[in-house]
C-alpha cells in the first residue's frame, strides 16, 4: 500500500470523527444544502495491459488515489433551481451521491435539510429524491404502476395523496396509457417520464436530477424540461440538476455552478455567467460564395467557418457591432445575417479550453 492510500484512509477516519474539514461557523443555518470543504477521494488499483502486467498485478497491486471532489463549498436556498454543470468526470455525480447520502464524504462538512446525509436517517430519506438518467429505479420486467405501488409502501404515502399525485403527474406528463406496460417495452423518453414520476410520488422537499435528459431526443428533452418547470411552479421544491446539455440549464436554472476537475469554477446567476467573456454578441453571416477566411478583417473576432467557407460566426464587442457588420456587408456578398446572445455552449467551451478566464473573473 502506498503512503497516499494510508493518508486518505487516515483522512477518512478523521473526517468521520468530525475532526478535520470543519469550518468554524456555518454561514447561513437556514440554507437547505450547506457544504464546506466537501471532499471525496477514491482509491483504485493500477492494472497494466498484457499478460506480464496481469501477472505482476496478481501479486502486487499499486494503488492510486483520485480526488473526485476537492474542497467544495456550496449553498442552496429553499425553492431554488440550481444547475451543476461540468464536463464528464468533473465530479457532478459524486457530489449528488454525497448530497443524497449514498456515499460518505472523505472530508468536509455537509448538511442537507439539517441532516448529515450519510447518517441516512429515515426522516431525511423521505424528504429527498434522486433521479439518475443512467440508472433506472423502475423494474424492467413489470409495468411502472407496480413499481409505483411498491414505492407507495416504501414512503408510506396514503392512498388519497398517492392517487391524486398519480393523476396530476400522469396528466402533466401524458403517460396515462404507459403506466400499465412493461418498462422494457417503452422508449427511453417514455421511461424517463415514469422515472421522474416515481421520484416525485412522495413529494420530496429536494429533488436531485442527475442528467435527466441524457440520451433523449430534442422533443423528449423539451417535454421533461417543461414538466420540471410546471412541477416546480406548483410545488416550490428545491431542485439540483446536473447536465451537460446547456439547454437544460438555460431553460430551468436561475443559478448555475460550474465544476471543473472536482473544484468549483463559477457560482452565480446565469446572466452573469454569460458575461464572463465580456459584452460580446455573436453574429452569423451567410455569403453568396466562398470567402477567404485568412483576411486580416476576421482577426480577433473568433471566427467559426463552415466547411464551404460561405458562412461564418463571429464574436463582436457590442460597441463595435455597427462598424464591423457595416464593413462586412459592404465588402462581401452577404445574403443573410443574424445576431444572438452568446450561446452558453460557447461560453463553456471557451472556459474549458482556458480555465484562466475564470480565475480572472473570480479575482
Amino acid at each position, binding site marked *: 500500500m502506498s503512503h497516499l492510500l494510508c493518508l486518505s484512509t487516515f483522512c477518512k477516519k478523521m473526517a*468521520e470523527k468530525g475532526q478535520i474539514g470543519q469550518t468554524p461557523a456555518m454561514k447561513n443555518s437556514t440554507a437547505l444544502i450547506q457544504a464546506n470543504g466537501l471532499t471525496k477521494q*477514491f482509491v483504485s488499483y493500477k492494472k497494466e495491459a498484457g499478460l506480464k502486467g496481469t501477472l505482476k498485478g496478481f501479486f502486487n497491486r499499486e494503488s492510486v488515489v483520485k480526488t473526485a471532489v476537492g474542497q467544495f463549498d456550496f449553498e442552496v436556498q429553499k425553492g431554488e433551481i440550481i444547475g451543476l454543470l461540468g464536463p464528464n468526470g468533473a465530479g457532478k*455525480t*459524486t457530489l449528488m*451521491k454525497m448530497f*443524497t*447520502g*449514498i*456515499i*460518505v464524504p472523505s472530508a468536509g462538512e455537509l448538511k442537507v435539510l439539517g441532516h448529515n446525509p*450519510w447518517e*441516512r436517517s*429515515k*426522516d431525511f*430519506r*423521505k424528504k*429527498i*429524491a*434522486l433521479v*439518475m*438518467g*443512467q*440508472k433506472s*429505479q423502475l*423494474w424492467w*420486467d*413489470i409495468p411502472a404502476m*407496480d*413499481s409505483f*405501488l*411498491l414505492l407507495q*409502501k*416504501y*414512503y*408510506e404515502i396514503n392512498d388519497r395523496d398517492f392517487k391524486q399525485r398519480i393523476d396530476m403527474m400522469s396528466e402533466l406528463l401524458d403517460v396515462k396509457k404507459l403506466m400499465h406496460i412493461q418498462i422494457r417495452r417503452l422508449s427511453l423518453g417514455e421511461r424517463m417520464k415514469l422515472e421522474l414520476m416515481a421520484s416525485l410520488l412522495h413529494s420530496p422537499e429536494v429533488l436531485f436530477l*442527475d442528467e435527466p435528459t441524457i440520451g433523449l431526443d430534442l422533443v423528449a428533452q423539451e417535454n421533461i424540461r417543461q414538466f420540471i418547470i410546471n412541477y416546480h411552479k406548483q410545488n416550490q421544491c428545491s431542485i439540483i440538476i446536473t447536465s451537460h446539455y446547456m439547454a437544460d440549464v438555460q431553460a430551468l436554472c436561475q443559478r448555475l455552478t460550474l465544476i471543473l476537475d472536482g473544484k468549483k469554477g463559477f457560482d452565480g446567476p446565469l446572466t452573469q455567467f454569460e458575461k464572463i467573456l465580456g459584452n460580446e454578441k455573436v453574429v452569423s453571416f451567410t455569403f453568396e460564395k466562398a470567402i477567404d477566411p485568412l483576411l486580416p478583417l476576421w482577426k480577433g473576432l473568433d471566427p467559426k467557418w463552415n466547411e464551404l467557407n460561405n458562412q461564418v460566426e463571429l464574436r463582436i464587442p457590442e460597441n463595435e457591432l455597427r462598424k464591423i457588420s457595416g464593413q462586412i456587408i459592404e465588402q462581401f456578398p452577404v445574403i443573410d445575417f443574424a445576431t444572438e446572445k452568446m450561446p452558453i455552449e460557447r461560453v463553456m467551451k471557451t472556459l474549458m479550453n482556458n480555465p484562466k478566464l475564470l480565475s480572472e473573473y473570480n479575482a
Partner: protein
Amino acid sequence: MMRNYWEIYKKFVSTSTTMAMSFRLPFVLLIVMDLCFYFTSLLTIDFIFNHIQHMGPWNRDQLMFFMAFMLLLDNLHMTFVSESFWELSMMLKTGQFDYVVLRPMNTLFSTFFRFFRPSTMLNFPIAVGVLIHYGLKIGLAPSAWALLPVFVILSFILLIQVEFIITTSMFWVIDGLGINFLRMQFQKLARWPNFVYASMPRRVFTLIFPILVIGSAPVSFLIDQSKWYWPLGLVTSIIVLGFVLSFLWTTGIRRYESASS
C-alpha cells in the same frame, strides 16, 4: 412500523411472483433443479448406508432425518432469500444499490428480502413431507414434534445471519460473485453433522463461526433431549451473530462507494 414492513413485504412477494410467472420455463426448471438436488443428497446417504451401519453415533434413518432437516432449510433459503444474494452482487457492480440506500427503510430488510422465489415454494410440501417421513421412522417424541417447527425457524434464522455476515464482505470486495460462491461453500459444510469433522475444524465451526450449529444443534437435541446445551448454543449464537451482523452491515454501508454511472 411492523405493519408497514408487512405491507412492503407483500408487495415484494407480489412483484417477484409477477416477474417469475412471466418466465415459464425457468419457473419449472427451478423446481426440477431443487428436486434433483434433494434426490441426489438423500440417495448419497442411502448408498453409503448400503455398506455401513453407523456414521458416528447415528444410524441411517437418523442421518436421513438430519439431511431432510437441512433440505427443508435449503428450501426456505431458496424461497425467501437466495435470489437476493445474487442480485446484490449485481446491484453493487452496476451501482443500482444506490436506490436501496435512498429508500426510507431498513437496508438489511430491503436488500435481503426483496426477491422471493414462488417456484421453490411449491417444493415446500415435499421437503416437509420428507422430514416428517424420517421423523416418524426415528420415532420422535411428541415433545420433539412440537419443538420441530420452532427449531426449523431458529435454524433458518441462524443460517441467514451467517450468510448475511459473509455477504457483507461484498462492500469491501466489489466482486460479489466470488463471495456468493464462498457462501455456498459454507452451506455445504453445514450439510453434514458436526461429528463428521476432525476436532479442530469442528471447534472453529461450532464455537467461533457457528455454521455447524445450524443443523447439528436442533437434530442432536430432537434425537436425544438430554442434550439441552445444544438449543442453548443455538439461541446464544443467534443473539451474538445478531449484534455482529448489525455492526458489520452499518460499517459496510458506509464503505459503499457506488459505481460511477
